[in-house]
């Protein structure tokens, strides 16, 4: 096996494009090294992107935040402005594994690992985040919900690497929230999860809403019908009940070691309601 640690994105792209065999990008490594240990992958080439300075940065610009692909989740947690603007995204990132894992793992890696249960992905989908991908043919921008195509599969092509994740600009009265269900308080994989991102107008009226669910389908899913239900008017019990129902209906889960179809479907609605309440109060709404 070859270990390569380029210092520029362009070099990473070149190496990815020309390397033969089983080629893997190493961001945080918290998924890749586990799969190597279990013998599920045997890379011929590993390209470590952590030495690429631009990929290690969180930048706040006119269009919002960009989070480099090699930024660890714990670094996101330490970034005050990011935390204030995107509390749901940051709390999702800070729920992945333990402090030890968060010291390594990245949201870009979480996204590209393409697990339906990835914690940060529903939050990023609700946030309308975009993955900025560099490849041999240049740059393309892909909505995060379109990255994973199936469990463990992404739309990334040979030679492509996510350079950073772009989060939209925030104004006042906007907030998001992410909640997941795990049997343990920590160190667990989401059995089901929900992210809600809300924008409020005057008098607490919801003007924009995005809801995403995790671990209830082959990939994390956006629930567009939830937007219709939440938009217009304040967050009240009727809206919450309708939200829960629509979320239940959006679930296409499986029975596995982590949970049952019945359980996931029911709890998806429960978490969506709770996340909506949390996002609403965070955005300044009164329940």
């Amino acid at each position: 096996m070859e270990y390569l640690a380029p210092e520029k994105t362009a070099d990473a792209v070149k190496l990815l494009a020309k390397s033969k065999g089983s080629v893997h990008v190493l961001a945080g490594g918290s998924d890749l090294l586990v799969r190597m240990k279990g013998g599920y992958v045997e890379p011929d080439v590993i390209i470590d992107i952590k030495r690429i300075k631009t990929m290690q940065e969180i930048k706040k610009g006119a269009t919002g935040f960009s989070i480099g692909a090699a930024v660890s989740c714990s670094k996101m947690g330490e970034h005050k402005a990011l935390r204030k603007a995107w509390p749901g995204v940051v709390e999702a990132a800070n729920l992945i594994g333990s402090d030890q894992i968060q010291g390594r793992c990245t949201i870009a890696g979480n996204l590209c690992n393409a697990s339906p249960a990835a914690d940060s992905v529903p939050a990023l989908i609700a946030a309308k985040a975009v993955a900025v991908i560099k490849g041999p043919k240049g740059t393309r921008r892909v909505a995060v919900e379109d990255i994973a195509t199936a469990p463990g599969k992404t739309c990334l092509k040979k030679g492509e690497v996510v350079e950073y994740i772009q989060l939209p600009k925030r104004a006042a009265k906007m907030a998001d929230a992410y909640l997941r269900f795990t049997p343990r308080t920590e160190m667990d994989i989401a059995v089901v999860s929900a992210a809600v991102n809300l924008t409020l107008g005057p008098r607490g009226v919801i003007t924009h809403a995005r809801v995403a669910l995790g671990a209830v389908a082959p990939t994390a899913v956006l629930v567009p019908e939830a937007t219709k239900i939440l938009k217009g008017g304040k967050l009240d019990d009727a809206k919450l009940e309708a939200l829960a129902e629509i979320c239940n209906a959006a679930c296409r889960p499986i029975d596995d070691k982590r949970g049952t179809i019945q359980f996931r479907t029911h709890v998806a609605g429960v978490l969506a309601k709770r996340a909506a309440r949390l996002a609403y109060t965070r955005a300044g709404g009164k329940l």
Partner: protein
Amino acid sequence: MSVLVSSIINGDNIEFACEPDETLLDALRDRVGMTGVKEGCGTGDCGACSITLDGALVCSCLVLGAEAEGRSIETVEGMSDGNVLHPLQQKFLEHAALQCGICTPGFLIAAKSLLEKNNDPTEEEVRYALAGNLCRCTGYDKIVRAVLDAAKQMRKA
């Protein structure tokens, strides 16, 4: 083909050679002889191999040895100051915060990392900060007490 790696381990410049797909945990144990770093799972689920890498708390089983080039590593072997134990080490002994002791190095490193960020944690903060370290013997009670007590002593110092 082996990779030659130069790192600063517990303040000392150390060079070691390892396979490119070898974890830092294996390199530390088998190449450098730091067997205080323990393997409980090899998948980041138990925290027994916790170290700090350029100050960040990580599981060394989820880091490649090759990644340590030029980086600074701290392990339990470097915790005490000469022959004076770190307050956490001392409090772990006083509170009997260990039974079998296999998880202890990882707990000490994780607790030290916590106290460097937060010198006055609540019980709940300690519990969440140490959630990445499994202990099967103690039920965590005495570990949490030891960390809280060490924090108290370190604030006085």
